[in-house]
């Protein structure tokens, strides 16, 4: 066991935890003022609920001893047998419990990411039930496939350094599926203006996400050393590159905005996630640029469609994660990380093919499973608040509170 590696994983875990409140601010600032608390509440409640479920059964489903490449066994249910000593399989230089918690923070934020699709109209109870089902039936299996020892996508050789498929593609694709089942906000079809209530809050949220992402990506090296440093610098560079590209695109279309820079940075961070520890840090520049361009135009296109995937989780995380997974297949270099492989630019086509396969599988599975889960929740408890509750705002109607006090 290494004290240095442990220090790095523990602080990385804290950093990733902070991302979920960061997301609460990022999303909360983007909705109308009457829904800011409700939007933030979703992330906080998911943090609470998934935080418990992870130690109870999530960890063992995702990382427990492999069952046919599909799911982890229940051996570690309630963390039984998981202790202060390192695991023999995962992160072998840090306490097993540290690895458990580090991974737990990923599960939490992945579920929270989806909430961007359903803000301003979903029933709070329905959201909780959906989240528990989705976590159990989508997140845990996919995490096992990609990261679990013996998981079938891992065996295939698909690479995902810090969660491009597991986190961003699952969340982004599921966002579209649940938005389709849930239906658009009142006024969406009529193109009613839905003005973001608090843009400084969005920027603060993006800043906390960026900050936390160093734990997310560089922490995924699971050791404190050259690989973590390489992933760290790639992470920052991609964020800068995508944020800058978003400024440029904003300028071309009319004006660069703070909302745009915040969005661009997050998209760059998403895209570098699967590749961070496999590519040369300088490759993060084109990865970030392309990510920003893809997300920007997909977002524009989406906003002209009838699906109200309100905060564009799909355009940001789904598309950003997809591009990132493919980018890993293009830019990866075994010289950076011997546990990785060479990508297209180093003459290896096979990796890109595997990445494509993994992406396709996760798109299809996440979309299908989420659609079914959403339909079931809709049938059983109903997904939407009443029309008048939506109009009044979810802060008052779901939570009996309002963000900013009276006179």
């Amino acid at each position, binding site marked *: 066991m290494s004290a240095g590696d442990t220090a790095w994983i523990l602080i990385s875990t804290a950093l990733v935890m902070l991302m979920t409140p960061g997301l609460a601010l990022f999303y909360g600032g983007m909705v109308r003022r009457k829904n800011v608390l409700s939007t933030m509440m979703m992330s906080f409640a998911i943090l609470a609920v998934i935080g418990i479920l992870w130690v109870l059964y999530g960890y063992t489903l995702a990382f427990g001893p492999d069952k046919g490449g599909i799911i982890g066994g229940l051996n570690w249910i309630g963390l039984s047998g998981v202790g202060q000593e390192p695991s023999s399989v995962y992160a072998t230089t840090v306490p097993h419990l540290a690895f458990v918690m580090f991974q737990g923070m990923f599960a939490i934020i992945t579920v929270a990411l989806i909430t961007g699709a359903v803000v301003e109209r979903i029933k709070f109870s329905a959201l909780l039930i959906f989240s528990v089902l989705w976590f159990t039936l989508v997140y845990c299996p996919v995490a096992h496939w990609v990261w679990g020892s013996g998981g079938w996508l891992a065996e295939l050789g698909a690479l995902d350094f810090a969660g491009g498929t597991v986190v961003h593609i699952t969340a982004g694709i599921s966002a579209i599926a649940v938005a389709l089942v849930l239906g658009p906000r009142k006024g969406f079809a009529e*193109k009613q*203006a*839905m*003005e973001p209530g608090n843009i400084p809050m969005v920027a603060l949220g993006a800043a906390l996400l960026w900050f936390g992402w160093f734990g997310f990506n560089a922490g995924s090296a699971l050791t404190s050393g050259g690989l973590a440093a390489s992933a760290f610098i790639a992470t920052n560079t991609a964020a800068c590159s995508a944020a800058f590209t978003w400024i440029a*695109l*904003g300028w071309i*279309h*009319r*004006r660069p*905005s703070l*909302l*745009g820079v915040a*969005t661009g940075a997050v998209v760059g961070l998403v895209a570098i996630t699967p590749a961070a520890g496999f590519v040369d840090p300088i490759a993060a520049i084109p990865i970030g640029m392309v990510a920003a361009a893809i*997300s*920007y*135009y997909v*977002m*524009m296109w989406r*906003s002209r469609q009838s699906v109200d995937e309100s905060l*564009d989780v799909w355009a940001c995380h789904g598309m950003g994660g997809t591009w990132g997974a493919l980018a890993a297949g293009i830019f990866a270099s075994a010289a950076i990380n011997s546990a990785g492989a060479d990508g297209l630019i180093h003459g290896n086509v096979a990796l890109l093919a595997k990445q494509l396969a993994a992406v396709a599988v996760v798109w299809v599975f996440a979309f299908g499973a989420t659609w079914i889960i959403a339909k079931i929740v809709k049938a059983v408890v109903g997904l939407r608040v009443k029309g008048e509750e939506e109009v009044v705002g979810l802060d008052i109607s779901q939570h009996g509170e309002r963000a900013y006090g009276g006179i």
Partner: protein
Amino acid sequence: MKKIEAIIRQEKLEPVRAALEGIGILGMTVMEVSGRGRQKGIPLQWRAGEYRVEFLPKVKIEVVVLDEDLGKALNTIMTRARTGDRGDGKIFVLPIENAIRVRTGDVGENAI
């Protein structure tokens, strides 16, 4: 006594206030409002692309003046608030039946 309600651009508040002070009108009450007129709305940047808000931020100034001060007050506001572009705003005049100064209890014209 008359009440002037002037809805003007936010950035014109300071010149109007200063000009009113110049002609001896100190008392006034202002509030932030959102307005709409010929100038229908404004496009704002969304994350990618734009959206339109229907209302624009304006400032409303309420000044109660003696009848004899009405003309110059209106004139002052009008000249200082004008840019010549859409959205310069409107001024309305309303009758006031009575006024009271809370501090002293003075009523009527003495209260202004």
